[in-house]
């Protein structure tokens, strides 16, 4: 915890820079001025956007409120910020689904989770019983964007409820 607006997290900003000397430096200035800690810069030279700009991905670590300030000051400095947020899939979420997993189309369930809950499945273990009528269990390991485990869980609950599946979830992040 820090007293500067929440826990320090990694944030990714995607910038589009005009191909001119000094552009990158100009873009990075507001970040350090606002107290963001630069972790990495991915400068895709030669890979131009449809509008002829150079896409740059910058990873910054700072508290969420400070991050908002950074994005604001970037925009004020005239830098084109195309995507900003805690965009990294760097948090893990493990849940167990219980119910008629196979009958309710497991692959569809997983697809829904990946798209609606905005999580990517990294590992699946299925334990199906012998009889068809019994319930089976699946353990899902998901990567989620940092700070979004709560939202992802809520979506997951919705998707599961539609198929009458039970979600055994971990305790909320704050309590682990």
């Amino acid at each position, binding site marked *: 915890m820090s007293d500067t607006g929440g826990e320090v997290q990694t944030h990714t900003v995607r910038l589009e820079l005009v191909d001119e000397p000094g552009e990158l430096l100009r873009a990075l200035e507001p970040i350090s001025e606002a107290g963001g800690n630069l972790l990495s810069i991915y400068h895709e030279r030669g890979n131009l956007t449809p509008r002829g700009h150079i896409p740059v991905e910058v990873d910054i670590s700072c508290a969420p409120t400070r991050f908002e300030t950074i994005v604001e000051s970037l925009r004020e400095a005239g830098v084109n910020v195309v995507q900003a947020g805690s965009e990294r899939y760097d948090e893990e979420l*493990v*849940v*167990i689904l*219980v119910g008629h997993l196979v009958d309710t189309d497991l692959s569809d369930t997983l697809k829904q989770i990946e798209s609606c809950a905005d999580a990517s499945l990294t590992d699946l*273990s299925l*334990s*199906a*019983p012998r009889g068809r009528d*019994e*319930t*089976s*269990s*699946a*353990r899902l*390991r998901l990567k989620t964007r940092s700070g979004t485990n709560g939202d992802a869980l809520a979506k997951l609950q919705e998707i599961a409820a539609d198929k009458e599946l*039970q979600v*055994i*979830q*971990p*305790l*909320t992040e*704050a*309590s682990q």
Partner: protein
Amino acid sequence: MSGARLCVLGAGAVGRSVVELAEEYGHTVTAVADSSSAVVDPDGVDAEAVLQRKSDEGVVGEADPDDAVGGAYDVLVEATPTTLGDAEPGFSHVKQGLERDKHVVLANKGPVAERYGELRELEADSEGKIRFEATVGGAIPILSTIEDFGPTHITAARGVLNGTANFILSRMAAEGLDYEHVLAEAQDLGVAEADPTFDVEGIDAALKFVILSNVLADGDQEFTLEDAVVDGITDIPGTALDLAAEDGRTIRLIGESTPEGVSVGPRLVPADGPLSVTGTLNIVQLETTHAGRLNISGRGAGGPETATAVLSDVSRLVD
């Protein structure tokens, strides 16, 4: 005042233990009632004889239960069955005690979980006070710890507060047995009741976490069972526990209380973490504002265990 005169309502596992242990704590039982009978003696009832009569004849004496509530005592001990909704007969017992300016100690969760605001109003108009340590986690001093810290210094409480559900889940995990099998075993051992609904559907745990939320909210908000999101353990297959174990985890029926809300349900917890207690043990974690996390565990149920909490409350009221 040192010793208190007690009126004990309810002569089940808890009430009987209170009657049996009161003297050891320096208190005198002047009345005992069950559902159909009572014994009243301003000089103190003969505890042994009363307990003997209860087990031989099913009654505690010749008097009417109303005579007990109206008799001479300092503290009324409410140990009748926990009921939902109107929380009767417990609520009326507490009301009568407070209206007579007596202190009341509850083991009965019903009134504290379902009609907390009304209880506090009755208390405000009375010379008497209420305490209810025994309603949450039996012998474990959870409420008195919260009281010591002050509710505003505790941001959340979570943990395992139902020994029956915990016994079932930990046996399922350890032995690879299914729910029905372990439930039957628990019933044979007397760990689960013939009708285990309250325990396995999470209702008993939810009542306790509702009480915790009421205490943590400290009058800002009132909770009842209806406000709690409750899931039980009856649908958990052995395969789910196997999958959890493969990943270094296990499943426990965990409740969470914050000043904003209450939930109870099966949750994944680290297999070697503090929340994965085994058998009928209970544990509560308190999240404090300045002192990190407190873990308190122990026996959450049983006659003598619960009576211990009741009698500690009595001593706090009169010492």
